[in-house]
C-alpha cells in the first residue's frame, strides 16, 4: 500500500477563484492510500516545494499527488521536488485542476466537483505507480536543416559556427529561397541579393556544411539525438562535383521556351539551366520534362559543349542515409493560388500580378532587367493600383483565402509604392488597404515616408472588381473614409497575396510526428516560452514554416533555433524517458502486430524457450522492446490484443484505475 500525500495548489486565484481548494483537500483525504493532505497558495514556489519535501520526510510518503496546473507546466518541477525529498520522481502524479478545471468552469460548485474527481483519478493511478529509472542514449553530433532559404541558411551557419556538421536539404537546384527572388528589403532598402548572396557563399565555403540541393527528405526514423534520415537526391543529369557552372550548356541548349520558375514564369529558360547567376551550388540542372535527349534520345548538345564532361544523361536518383541528432524545419512559404479570386482578374490579364512577380519585374536580374514594364505590352505603366490583404484576414471567405494576417504585405507594399514613385515620379500609385500594420523597428517611419515624402495615395477600402478593358484595367473600389465609390483606370494591378506554408510541410510534419495548426503552420512547444522548438523532442522550427515572418524576424528565429540545436548537440548523452513499453513474454503471441505499428522500429522478436505445465519446454516467438529506441508512444499497447504489451508509468491497469475512480 502506498502512503500518499495530496497537495492542492491555489495558483493564487487561478484555481482558488473557481475551485474550493479546502473542500478538495478534505474530500481527497479519505481516498485509499492518502495519509497526508494540505493546500497552499503557490505549490510550485520554494515554500510550496518545501511543504512537499517536509511532508515526505515526516509522513514517510511513497507517492505524491499534486492538484495544480497542467503537467506540461510543472510536472518536471514536482518530479525534481520528489527527487530532492529522496523519492523516485515517477511517484508523482499531477491532477490538472487548472486548465482542465478552474479555467473551463464558471461556478465554484461544478469546478470543485470536477477537481475532486480529477484528484481521485490521480490518487488511483499513483496507488499503482512503481519507481522508474530512465536509460541513456547517445547524441549524434550532426544537424539536419530542411529548407535552404534565409532561415535554413542562417540556422546552418550558426550551428556550423559552433563546430557541428550540418546538412541542408533543399528541393530547388539552388539554396537562397524566396529572399533570392526579392529586389530590395524593407525598411532599409538594401538589395536582397547583396545581403543574401554573401551568406550563400559562406554556406558553400563552410567545410562543416553540406548542401543537398535538388533533394528531398524521403524518410525520417528515430528520435531526438538519433534521427535516421533518408535523403533523395534527385537526378539533375549533371555531375555536381565536375560542373564549373560556366553556362556554356545553357547557352547552346535548343529548348528555349520553358517557363522560368525563378522569374515566376514571366520569361523563359532552357531545358538545362542555372536558376540565377549567384546560385549555390552553381551547377546546371537538366529539366527531364523538357530535355529532348532525356525524352527521346535526340539532341545531346549540352554534353558536346561541356568541356568538363559533366553531363550524365544516365544519372539516377540517389538515396543518402545519414544520422542526425537534431532536425530544423525551415520549409518556408508560398503565395496562395489566385485561382479562386476571379474578382481581381489575375487569370484574365497579364497586367494583374502578385507582389512577388512585381519583385522580379523591378529586379535588375529579372525578366525586364529591372525596368518596370507591363507584362502585356512592355509599356511603362502610369497608374498602378496596389491591393493589400488579398486572401489574408479573410474570415468570411475562408474557403478561398486565409483567416490570418500575412504580416509582411503592408511593409513590402509600402516599399513597392515608394520605389515606384522614386524611380518613376510620373506614375500615380494607389494602395488599397483594410488597416496598415507597421509594428517593427523603423517600420512606421518607413510607411509614413511612402505617404508623406513620396506621395503614395493610400486609400482605406477594398477593391471590389478589376475588369480588363482595352489596354486598361478598370478598378472599382470603395474609399471608406470619403464614403464613395472609386473607378480607376489602371495600367498595372499588384496584389499583395496571402502567404501559406509550403506544401511539403504537411507530409514532413507527419514524418517528424511534429504537430501543425489548421493552417499547416508548425506548432511551437510553447507559443511564448518555447517558440523555436516543436513539441516533438529534437525538432526545431526556423522561419515562416512556423508563421508569417519578415526577414529580420526570420533571421533572429533562425539563430534562436540554432542555439537550441547547439544546446542539444553539446550533450554527449540524453536521459531517456523511462515510460516505455515492455512485453509480458508469458502472454505474448509473437504476432508482430506491435512491431508493425511501432513508428520507431523499437520492437524485435526472438525465439525463447518457456517451461510448460507438463514439464516440457516450448519455443515461442516473443516481442522484445529496445529501451533506447522506444519513445513510449503507446501505439503497441493498444494494438496488442492479448494485452501482453504495456507501457511503464501508463499501464493499462493504471489507466483503468483512473477511469474507475472517475466513474465511481
Amino acid at each position, binding site marked *: 500500500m502506498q502512503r500518499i500525500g495530496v497537495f492542492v495548489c491555489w495558483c493564487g486565484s487561478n484555481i482558488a477563484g473557481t475551485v474550493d481548494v479546502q473542500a478538495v483537500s478534505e474530500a481527497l483525504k479519505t481516498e485509499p492510500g492518502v495519509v497526508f493532505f494540505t493546500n497552499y497558495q503557490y505549490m510550485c514556489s520554494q515554500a510550496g516545494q518545501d511543504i512537499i519535501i517536509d511532508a515526505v520526510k515526516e509522513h514517510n510518503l511513497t507517492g505524491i499527488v499534486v492538484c495544480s496546473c497542467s503537467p506540461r507546466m510543472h510536472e518536471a518541477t514536482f518530479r525534481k521536488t520528489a527527487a530532492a525529498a529522496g523519492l523516485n520522481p515517477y511517484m508523482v502524479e499531477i491532477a490538472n485542476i487548472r486548465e482542465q478545471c478552474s479555467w473551463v468552469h464558471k461556478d465554484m460548485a461544478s469546478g470543485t466537483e470536477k477537481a475532486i474527481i480529477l484528484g481521485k483519478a490521480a490518487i488511483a493511478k499513483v496507488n499503482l505507480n512503481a519507481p522508474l529509472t530512465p536509460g541513456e542514449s547517445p547524441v549524434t553530433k550532426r544537424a539536419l536543416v530542411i529548407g535552404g532559404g534565409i532561415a535554413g541558411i542562417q540556422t546552418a551557419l550558426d550551428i556550423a559556427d559552433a563546430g557541428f556538421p550540418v546538412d541542408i536539404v533543399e528541393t530547388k537546384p539552388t539554396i537562397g529561397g524566396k529572399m533570392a527572388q526579392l529586389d530590395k528589403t524593407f525598411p532599409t532598402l538594401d538589395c536582397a541579393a547583396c545581403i543574401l548572396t554573401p551568406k550563400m557563399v559562406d554556406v558553400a565555403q563552410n567545410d562543416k556544411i553540406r548542401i543537398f540541393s535538388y533533394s528531398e527528405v524521403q524518410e525520417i526514423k528515430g528520435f531526438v539525438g538519433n534521427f535516421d534520415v533518408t535523403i533523395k537526391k534527385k537526378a539533375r543529369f549533371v555531375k555536381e562535383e565536375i560542373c564549373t557552372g560556366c553556362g556554356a550548356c545553357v547557352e547552346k541548349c535548343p529548348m528555349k521556351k520553358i517557363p522560368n520558375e525563378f522569374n515566376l514564369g514571366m520569361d523563359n529558360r532552357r531545358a538545362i539551366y542555372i536558376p540565377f547567376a549567384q546560385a549555390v551550388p552553381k551547377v546546371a540542372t537538366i529539366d527531364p520534362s523538357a530535355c529532348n535527349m532525356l525524352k527521346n534520345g535526340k539532341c545531346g548538345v549540352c554534353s558536346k559543349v561541356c568541356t568538363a564532361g559533366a553531363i550524365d544523361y544516365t544519372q539516377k536518383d540517389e538515396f543518402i542515409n545519414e544520422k542526425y541528432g537534431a532536425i530544423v524545419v525551415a520549409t518556408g512559404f508560398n503565395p496562395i493560388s489566385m485561382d479562386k479570386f476571379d474578382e481581381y482578374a489575375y487569370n484574365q490579364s497579364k497586367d494583374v500580378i502578385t507582389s512577388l512577380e512585381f519583385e522580379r519585374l523591378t529586379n535588375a536580374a529579372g525578366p525586364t532587367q529591372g525596368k518596370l514594364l507591363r507584362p502585356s505590352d512592355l509599356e511603362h505603366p502610369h497608374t498602378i493600383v496596389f491591393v493589400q490583404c488579398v486572401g489574408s484576414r479573410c474570415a468570411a471567405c475562408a474557403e478561398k483565402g486565409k483567416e490570418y494576417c500575412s504580416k509582411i504585405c503592408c511593409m513590402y507594399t509600402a516599399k513597392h509604392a515608394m520605389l515606384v514613385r522614386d524611380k518613376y515620379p510620373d506614375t500615380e500609385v494607389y494602395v488599397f488597404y483594410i488597416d496598415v500594420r507597421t509594428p517593427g523597428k523603423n517600420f512606421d517611419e518607413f510607411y509614413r515616408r511612402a505617404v508623406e515624402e513620396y506621395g503614395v495615395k493610400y486609400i482605406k477600402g477594398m477593391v471590389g472588381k478589376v475588369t480588363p478593358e482595352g489596354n486598361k484595367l478598370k478598378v472599382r473600389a470603395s474609399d471608406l473614409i470619403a464614403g464613395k465609390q472609386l473607378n480607376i483606370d489602371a495600367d498595372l494591378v499588384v496584389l499583395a497575396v496571402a502567404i501559406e506554408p509550403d506544401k511539403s510541410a504537411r*507530409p514532413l510534419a*507527419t514524418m517528424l510526428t511534429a504537430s501543425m495548426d489548421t493552417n499547416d503552420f508548425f506548432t511551437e512547444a510553447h507559443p511564448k516560452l518555447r517558440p523555436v522548438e516543436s513539441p516533438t523532442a529534437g525538432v526545431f522550427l526556423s522561419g515562416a514554416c512556423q508563421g508569417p515572418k519578415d526577414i529580420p524576424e526570420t533571421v533572429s528565429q533562425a539563430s534562436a533555433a540554432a542555439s537550441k540545436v547547439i544546446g542539444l548537440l553539446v550533450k554527449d548523452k540524453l536521459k531517456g524517458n523511462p515510460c516505455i513499453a515492455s512485453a509480458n513474454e*508469458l*502472454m*505474448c*503471441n*509473437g*504476432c*508482430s*502486430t506491435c512491431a*508493425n*505499428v511501432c*513508428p520507431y522500429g523499437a520492437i524485435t*522478436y526472438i525465439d525463447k524457450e518457456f517451461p510448460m505445465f507438463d514439464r516440457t519446454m*516450448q519455443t*515461442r*516467438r516473443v516481442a522484445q522492446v529496445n529501451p533506447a529506441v522506444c519513445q513510449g508512444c503507446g501505439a503497441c499497447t493498444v*494494438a496488442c*490484443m*492479448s*494485452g*501482453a504489451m504495456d507501457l511503464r508509468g501508463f499501464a*493499462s*491497469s493504471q489507466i*483503468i484505475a483512473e477511469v474507475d475512480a472517475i466513474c465511481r
Partner: protein
Amino acid sequence: MQKVNRDVLLEKAAAMLDAGEVQAVLGWGAGEFAYDVTPRVFETSDELRADFVWNDFCGANLSKYLVSKTKKLEGKLLVFLKPCDTYSFNQLLTEHRFEREKVYAVAVPCEGMADVQKLKALAGDGISSIESTDSGFSVTTIYDDAPVEVKGADVLLEKCANCKSRKHVAYDELLGDEGEVLDSNRFDEVERIEAMTSEERFAFWQGELSRCIRCNACRDVCPACTCEKCVFDNPNSGAENKAPTTSFEEQMFHVIRAFHVAGRCTDCGECSRVCPQNIPLHLLNRKFIKDINTFYGEYQAGAEEGSRAPLVDYTLEDLEAEDVFKKEAE
C-alpha cells in the same frame, strides 16, 4: 452436394500417412449424429477409413487447430482446407501462429455447407438419418418413417449463402478445380442495421446479445482468437469475466471481441455457425470489415500472407480522424 467426394480426400490422406510423409491428418470426423461432424486429428489410415468424413456438414474451419496441433508433432500435419479456411490459414501465418513447414495444406473445393438449425426447422427435430440427393437432402426423423425432402439451397449456412470466395488463397496441393473470388451480398444486412436509428440499433443488439450464455464457443472456434492468454481469462486484464451474471456479455464481451479481431477477421463465419443462441455475431465483424473498406480501401484479411492490415499500417494517404465522419455521411 460436394463435387469432390470423400474417397478422393481419404485416399490422399491415407497414402501420405502410410508413406510417412505426414505424421497426422487434421480433418473432419464422424460424430454421434449424421450432422454433428467435428474436427479431429487422425494418426493412422485405419482411423481415417473408419471415421473420416467429407460431406455437406464439414462447415468447421480447421486452420485454427494448426496452432496447437503442430506444436505437439515432430513431423508434418496434413490439413484439409475449404476456400474460406485458406484465408484464416494465411492470416495465422501472417501472425506467426504456426510454422508453415510443419503443415501440408490440401485445398478442397466447396459447394457450400449445410446449417443444421435450418435443416431441423424444415425437417423437424429428432433427425435419425440424412441422405444426400441431387438437389439437397432426404431427411428421416425418429417421429416419421417417411423422409422429408429438403432443398440444399434452403439450408445453406449463412456464411455459405453469402460466400465471398471459392478461390483457395494458400495450399500445397489442390484437389479438384480452382474457384473464383465472388461478389457477395454479405454487407446487405450490415447496411440494414446501419440504417436504423441509434435507439433501434441499441435495442436490436441488446435483444441479440442478451441471449448470450457465455459459453465462449465463438471465441474458442474463432481462428483470430489464438492468444496465449485470452484477456477474458486473465484476471489482470480488467476484462475478465467467466459467467453471464452481469450485463458484461450484453454490453462488453462481444464488442471487445469484435475490436480484438478487427482488421484480422477473415469473415469465415465460424462465430455465428457455432453460437448455440443463434446470435448473428458475424455482423459485428462485417461492420468493421465494411468500415475498413470504406475508410482505407478494399482489404481482405488473409487474402495474402504477410499483408499489412490498414489498422496496423500507416500511409500518408490515411484518413484523418475528422474525415471519418464526413466519409461516413457520404
